[in-house]
């Protein structure tokens, strides 16, 4: 049943399936129609569903994201694609002031079945304006949910679940994940959309991460195993809400916490993860939790410097070894 798909293909399948099942689902954004989507996510859908359900928009991020909000108020299920999260800064009024507030301010009268999909993250020399990760900004907004799939299977499941949800959900994709391959089993029963997954079991420390960094963490864990360190890797999959129970259960076993994030360190997602787990699991911890994160600087254009500004597999390995009490050179 399972087949190997690229991440973008998994998203495309999910969107296609939901559009075929439910006429209230439509998608809109810059170049999603005739062009087929900047990262091919909407490829083929314009021909299949027509221009009203696959709508090419002007370059008006605030306007068309707000359009999605208005359509959702009438019971439609819009899937807004913002070409990159960097452009979503122009749509924050629609996302934060409208989508996240209307269900609440209306006393619960209006659901908000809106999905806003957007890629972000450091890709390949796109410079500071096109390399941001803004999850911290959105995590701090009550009323919004955030999913961060790191594999084609999660991309498939979580997009379908987000479309079916009556809450506003932001789907943060990663520009370097679109062409990564993975097994997708459309028939498999998905876990709850916000549930974290244990990508690798281990006993010596817990690495908590999400999105592309979760994949690097799994690779780091394989290297650590060669050094006799068994790391448990948790992929959060959702940044609001966060599945704290899965995290706490792991810390009961490993007693050591390493958080890996691509976003800037200061006031980032990792700060919340460590603060919360310190409160919950303080007496399970044998060492101070450790964060590795992006540098607190705008992303440099230069290739070497860009690479140096975000965590790499070796950074994770080194930090994990130190946390587990191993000397780096040992």
């Amino acid at each position: 049943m399972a087949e190997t798909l690229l991440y973008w293909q998994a998203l495309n399948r999910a969107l296609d399936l939901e559009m075929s099942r439910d006429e209230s689902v439509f998608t809109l954004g810059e170049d999603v129609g005739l062009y087929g989507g900047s990262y091919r996510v909407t490829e083929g859908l314009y021909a299949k569903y027509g221009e009203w359900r696959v709508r090419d928009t002007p370059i008006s991020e605030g306007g068309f994201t707000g359009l999605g909000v208005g359509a959702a108020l009438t019971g439609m299920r819009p899937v807004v694609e913002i070409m990159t999260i960097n452009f979503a800064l122009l749509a924050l009024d629609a996302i934060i002031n409208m989508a996240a507030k209307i269900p609440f301010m209306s006393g619960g009268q209006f659901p908000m079945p809106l999905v806003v999909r957007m890629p972000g993250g450091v890709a390949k020399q796109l410079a500071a304006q096109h390399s941001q990760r803004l999850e911290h900004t959105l995590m701090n907004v009550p009323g919004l949910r955030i999913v961060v799939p790191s594999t084609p299977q999660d991309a498939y499941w979580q997009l379908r679940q987000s479309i079916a949800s009556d809450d506003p959900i932001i789907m943060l994709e990663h520009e370097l994940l679109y062409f990564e391959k993975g097994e997708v089993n459309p028939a498999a029963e998905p876990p709850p959309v916000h549930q974290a997954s244990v990508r690798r079991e281990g006993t010596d420390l817990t690495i908590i991460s999400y999105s592309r960094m979760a994949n690097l963490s799994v690779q780091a864990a394989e290297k650590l195993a060669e050094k006799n360190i068994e790391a448990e890797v948790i992929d959060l999959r959702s940044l609001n809400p966060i599945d704290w129970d899965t995290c706490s259960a792991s810390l009961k076993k490993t007693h050591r916490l390493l958080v890996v994030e691509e976003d800037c360190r200061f006031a980032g997602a990792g700060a919340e993860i460590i603060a919360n787990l310190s409160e919950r699991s303080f007496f399970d911890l044998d060492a101070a939790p450790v964060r590795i994160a992006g540098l607190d600087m705008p992303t440099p254009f230069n290739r070497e410097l860009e690479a140096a500004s975000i965590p790499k597999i070796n950074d994770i390995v080194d930090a994990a070894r130190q946390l587990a009490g191993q000397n780096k050179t040992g």
Partner: protein
Amino acid sequence: MDRDTLHRFLYDMLLARAFEERAAEEYANGNIAGFLHLYPGEEAVAVGVIHAAEPSDYLVTTYREHVHALVRGIPPRPIMAELFGRCDGICKGMGGSMHLFDRERRFMGGYAIVGETFPVATGIGYSIALRQLPEAVICFFGDGAVNQGTFHEALNMAALWKLPVLFVCENNHYQIGTEIHRHSAVVDVHKRACAYNIPAEKFDGMDVINVYEATRHALARIRAGNGPQLLEFETYRFRGHSMADSGSYRPRSEVKAYAERDPLKTVINEAEFGYPTSEQITAAGPDVISRLVDHPSAIDHFDARHVEQIKQEVANIVDDAAQFASQSPQPTIDDAWASLYGNRQHETLMEDAQHG
């Protein structure tokens, strides 16, 4: 104009005025807090526009929207209770004065960030057009909103896809304290619509019949498939921007000139027009009394006593609404959580994740 329609206009405008003046009083009494933006002076716009709409048409309004809610048919009690922030408010006390919503009556919200009504209305229009329904959406905005990017983005999209959106400018000439000549290079709001090929006209917004007719025609054009239309109604707010603003920046002569054109006076004059005075009736003699009285009722007018009756009636309704609001219980923090998460019917999220 038939008598019933005119009567409804008059009734709604008197109710609106009485409701807003009572809200100001309750604010002064400490029963209403926060930002409170009142509508006296502008009643002809909401009343004329909303009466011209069908109940199936959607309304998207600004933060100065109590009157729009009343005219749409939301009872005064839950509106006043919302202003008080109480449990029986139309939004259970979660929205307040600036955020009235009523899903059932297609009252799609009061929005308190200037310029937000444009994309919301455009999205509703998109949804109507996609499903090919014979409905429309009315988007209210003030003169100060037209310099936000959303105005231009939304007008462009609405025109591009011929969406059934009626953009209604309540031009009261001021964005809080800045007069239109100091905030806009082009002060004729309707002229801006030509950049997007949207038919637009300006009308006197102090005359409810005028507003009603203009809106009816614009909605007819929309329903005929002509795409969005824009109407600019020139009006005036008699009070400051909000209760925190005395409005002292406005020239006294200007305030006085508009006070003389009070839309309530205008509609009362309209209603009484042609009705004979008691002196005229006496002078005409007994034979023709019946004729004189019959004539105006045939052309659907009525006399000053009716106006007084309505005033009394709306005063009682507003009293009752304020009484109701003051007796409504305060909402609890659990009510707030329920408002936030009440729409997750088919999804089960972790209990502790739900409550922070």
